[in-house]
């Protein structure tokens, strides 16, 4: 081994080195937070196609090689990062090959020549090189500004303290920009006098002397016409984000200093936190103008002076949605005011302190528009209507979330659909999107308040619900078995989840509940579905609910399954449940099964009988393949028509469902429920409509409903569909908005949370018990009416006509119609039939 190491070392050292590019930052954090930043110290662009990053794991001398592509501009950075790094990180070259954990050497080569290195090839240091913050494990280390050449000997001892400055674990804010003596990633530097003449400012730092107008730096395009130049600038500080991770502040020209061009912004972000400033300060700055991820900013501040304090802030500009990028760019960095916005997306509010607002609630395109061009056009329009609102902090999982005031909590939620009459702040561009940094408290209105129970206006005699229970996994059912495959990570998390789900189902108070995403672990006393039923019955203090167990004791082999629970005093299963899977699926023209149970969860169908009337109805529970992962192996890719991945797989399953139910349950009032992972206008719903299953929401004219929010867009993934025998016996339907509208941070999970969050953001109530809203369907199953031959719930002249036709044709054999008891069904019984009429003189409706 030693000989081999020496040979390898000799070969490597024999090659010449290049001094143009160095490793300027190394991030070794949690999860996949791994990154290596390169910095071009030269004044010329460097082609990276000849560069390779080599990783030597655990003292090995054979490397894992990452071939680089692209180019790195003069004084610019280039970040190679793991593909799943924190999305807030600046990344130029994502790769899933960038894996190291502190004891692995990293070597940068150009065309075989060693350019720079971290660690010592051939040595396993145990866990890390260095110590404390300045080490290669669980830290981020940034090359000191005076280091302009790389460590071209990867076999010598390595101590990061010599050339590096350490930062805490998961510090990613420095990625994408680097300060080096003699230059930075923000330009050539310069001393100001280079740009002191003419339009670009003066060479002195005296307040009030000439300076470059901010609007001139912004220009009217997407990038600054003065990028790379060192300039003198004056402006009023309008927002101070120096302490929150953004490490800077916004300045805006005073009202008297603006140009008359609405296409050029009057404000800038100043990347500088070394000197404290306050909102209202008029500051004079010498710094380099540049574009940082398309945000025009000043950085590498060489001089800053507060000229005056407590200045009146520039007037806020009215910003109206929808707005395109050009319109937004023209206001970049400026104070703006938005009126009458509505909260549309809180999914990542807890993680990044960011939520979205829009000019109105936005529907998922394929919920309301035909997939394809129409849906894509709506998608584009939706984007113009929304914008993010950021808390001004780059840290993840902030301790406090400021909206709604005083702060978000389990009992003070920020729900999608809530409104903000007036939103004032700074319009900026960060992390690849336009955002508003609010000025002061965001005054929200609870326009979409929580409700304690589903709103059912018309009561029937049977209630059915469909509920995706967000991976309800109960470990081994005996208090252990955590973390589970898809659900709770700990028993404590499961208890939190269980309490929420039980509260929700208890409040729904349905006679039959179809479940999705319940652990597929059978039907024993330790199973997840038994646990859920036990919990519900404990809540009721009685054995109210029971569950349906398939005869063969299993339902496919996925980690999750659908399920059915029911109130045994109200309904009874009739015969064995029916299962649709690949084995018994209807087939296509090529005799191939339409339903694939390795993608879709097998469908569970149960016919129930109402205990007090013996009326029958069937409930078929579904959970079709999601849009998230691809079905490329089935030649079923995302066609970018709005329907996402696996649309063919879902559509074929829907056809199978329709055929199966029509064959197996002819004339039985049947309700198809579940998470079809398809919005209302998508092909699977069309296939079910073609099979005779009507969308109950449409049938009852329930508009603007939804069960799920994805990226701020509303839609129904969860459905209720009825066949012809049932549709007119459904009297009401609702999607109970207890989950989709709620911030994800209010769910049971304790992951990515600080200790203070565990109580602040959690309550054992039904809100955010899942990511899907339950769908509640109210049936009024009507007893078959004697004499109602046309089955329209009355007996009238039309039935009289049918009666006469049938007795004339000899088709009627039910001797209950022999009203005159002459053992013959004939016209002499018409008079008796008339007595059945539900309205005077057998009038029709």
């Amino acid at each position: 081994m030693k000989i081999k190491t020496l040979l390898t070392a000799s070969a490597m050292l024999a090659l010449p080195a290049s001094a143009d590019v160095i490793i300027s930052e190394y991030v070794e954090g949690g999860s996949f937070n791994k990154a290596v930043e390169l910095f071009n110290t030269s004044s010329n662009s460097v082609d990276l196609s000849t560069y390779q990053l080599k990783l030597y794991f655990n003292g090995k001398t054979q490397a894992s090689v990452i071939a680089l592509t692209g180019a790195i501009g003069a004084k610019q950075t280039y970040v190679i990062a793991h593909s799943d790094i924190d999305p807030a990180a600046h990344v130029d070259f994502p790769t899933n090959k960038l894996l190291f954990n502190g004891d692995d050497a990293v070597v940068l080569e150009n065309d075989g020549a060693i350019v720079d290195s971290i660690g010592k090839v051939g040595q396993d240091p145990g866990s890390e090189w260095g110590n404390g913050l300045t080490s290669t494990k669980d830290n981020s280390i940034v090359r000191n500004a005076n280091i302009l050449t790389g460590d071209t000997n990867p076999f010598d001892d390595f101590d990061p303290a010599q050339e590096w400055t350490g930062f805490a674990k998961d510090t990613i804010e420095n990625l994408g920009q680097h300060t080096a003596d003699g230059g930075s990633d923000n330009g050539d530097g310069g001393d100001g006098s280079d740009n002191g003449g003419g339009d670009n400012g003066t060479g002195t730092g005296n307040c009030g002397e000439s300076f470059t107008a901010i609007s001139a730096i912004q220009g009217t395009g997407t990038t600054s016409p003065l990028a790379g130049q060192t300039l003198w600038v004056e402006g009023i500080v309008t927002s101070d984000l120096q302490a929150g991770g953004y490490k800077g502040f916004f300045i805006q020209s005073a009202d008297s200093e603006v140009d008359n061009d609405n296409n050029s912004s009057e404000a800038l972000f100043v990347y500088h936190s070394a000197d404290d400033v306050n909102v209202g300060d008029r500051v004079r700055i010498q710094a380099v103008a540049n574009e940082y991820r398309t945000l025009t900013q000043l950085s590498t501040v060489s001089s800053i002076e507060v000229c005056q304090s407590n200045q009146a802030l520039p007037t806020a500009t009215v910003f109206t949605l929808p707005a395109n990028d050009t319109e937004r760019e023209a206001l970049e960095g400026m104070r703006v005011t938005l009126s009458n916005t509505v909260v549309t997306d809180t999914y990542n509010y807890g993680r990044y302190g960011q939520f979205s607002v829009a000019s109105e609630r936005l529907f998922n395109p394929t919920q309301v528009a035909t997939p394809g061009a129409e849906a894509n056009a709506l998608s584009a329009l939706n984007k113009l209507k929304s914008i993010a609102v950021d808390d001004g902090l780059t840290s993840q999982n902030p301790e406090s979330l400021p909206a709604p005031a005083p702060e978000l909590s389990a009992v003070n939620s920020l729900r999608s659909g809530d409104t903000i009459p007036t939103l004032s702040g700074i319009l900026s561009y960060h992390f690849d999107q336009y955002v508003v940094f609010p000025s002061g408290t965001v005054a929200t209105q609870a326009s979409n308040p929580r409700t304690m129970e589903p709103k059912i206006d018309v009561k029937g005699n049977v209630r059915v619900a469909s509920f995706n229970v967000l991976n309800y996994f109960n470990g081994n059912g005996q208090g252990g078995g955590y973390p589970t495959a898809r659900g709770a990570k700990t028993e404590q998390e499961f208890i939190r989840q269980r309490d929420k789900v039980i509260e929700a189902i208890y409040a729904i108070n349905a006679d039959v509940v179809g479940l999705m995403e319940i652990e597929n672990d059978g039907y024993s006393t330790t199973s997840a579905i038994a646990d859920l039923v036990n919990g519900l019955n404990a809540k009721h203090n009685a054995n109210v609910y029971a569950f349906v167990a398939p005869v063969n004791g299993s339902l496919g082999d996925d980690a999750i399954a659908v399920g059915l629970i029911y109130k045994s005093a109200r309904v009874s299963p009739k015969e064995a449940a029916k299962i649709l899977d690949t084995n018994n699926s209807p087939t296509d023209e090529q005799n191939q099964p339409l339903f694939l149970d390795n993608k879709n969860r097998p469908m569970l169908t149960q016919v129930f009988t109402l205990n007090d009337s013996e009326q029958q109805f069937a409930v078929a529970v579904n959970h079709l393949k999601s849009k998230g992962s691809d079905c490329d192996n089935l030649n079923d890719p995302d066609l970018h028509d709005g329907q996402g991945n696996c649309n063919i797989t879902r559509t074929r399953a829907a056809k199978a469902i329709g055929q199966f139910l029509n064959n197996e349950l002819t004339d039985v009032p049947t309700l198809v429920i579940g998470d079809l992972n398809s919005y209302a206008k998508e092909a699977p719903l069309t296939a079910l409509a073609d099979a005779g299953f009507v969308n109950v929401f449409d049938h009852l004219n329930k508009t603007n409903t939804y069960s799920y929010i994805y990226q701020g867009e509303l839609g129904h993934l969860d459905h209720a569909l009825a066949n012809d025998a049932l549709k007119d016996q459904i009297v009401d339907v609702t999607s109970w908005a207890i989950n989709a509208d709620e911030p994800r941070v209010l769910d049971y999970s304790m992951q990515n949370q600080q200790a203070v969050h565990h109580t602040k953001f959690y309550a054992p109530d039904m809100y955010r018990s899942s990511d899907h809203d339950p769908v509640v369907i109210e049936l009024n199953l009507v007893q078959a009416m004697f004499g109602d031959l046309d089955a329209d719930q009355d007996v009238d002249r039309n039935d009289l006509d049918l009666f006469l036709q049938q007795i004339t044709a000899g088709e009627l054999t039910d001797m209950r119609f022999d009203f005159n008891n002459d053992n013959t069904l004939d016209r002499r019984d018409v008079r008796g039939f008339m007595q059945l009429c539900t309205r005077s003189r057998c009038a029709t409706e």
Partner: protein
Amino acid sequence: MKYLLLVLCFLSHAASATLITLDADKANYATNETIELNINVNDMLPDAAELEFDIAFDPVSIEFDFLDIAPSSGVFYDFTDVNAGILTVNLWWFSALDVPAGNFNLATALFTALSDVSPVFNVVSMNQYDELGNLLQPVAVDEPWALVLFATGLIFMSYRRIKA
């Protein structure tokens, strides 16, 4: 004698029952001509709420087309000519109170002449029922006498034509 024959033929057209009278719009019809037969009712029994009767006709010379019931409200009715030469009509009033009092036009039956014809219609069966479906007092129908008169007229006319 000729006048006697005409009277006999007329009588055979004009009346067949005491309750129901049939009145064709004219005596003779050319081929394909529409025959309009008014069906009139004379004083139904007070408790009657249902009327059932059969009208006989010659299916060789005429064809039944349609029956238009005059009192369209308060009554449910049906008619059929499923048996050749017999038009069966049923009327069920929802209440005896709905039955028109006195004499009234019940219906108009339309036929088509299949040849040049002087059609003959006879009520050959008739019943009335009360609201409970009970058969009320049967009404005598002088069908045999009408047939005898009609046959006699035809025989005499044939005899006179041969003799001439």
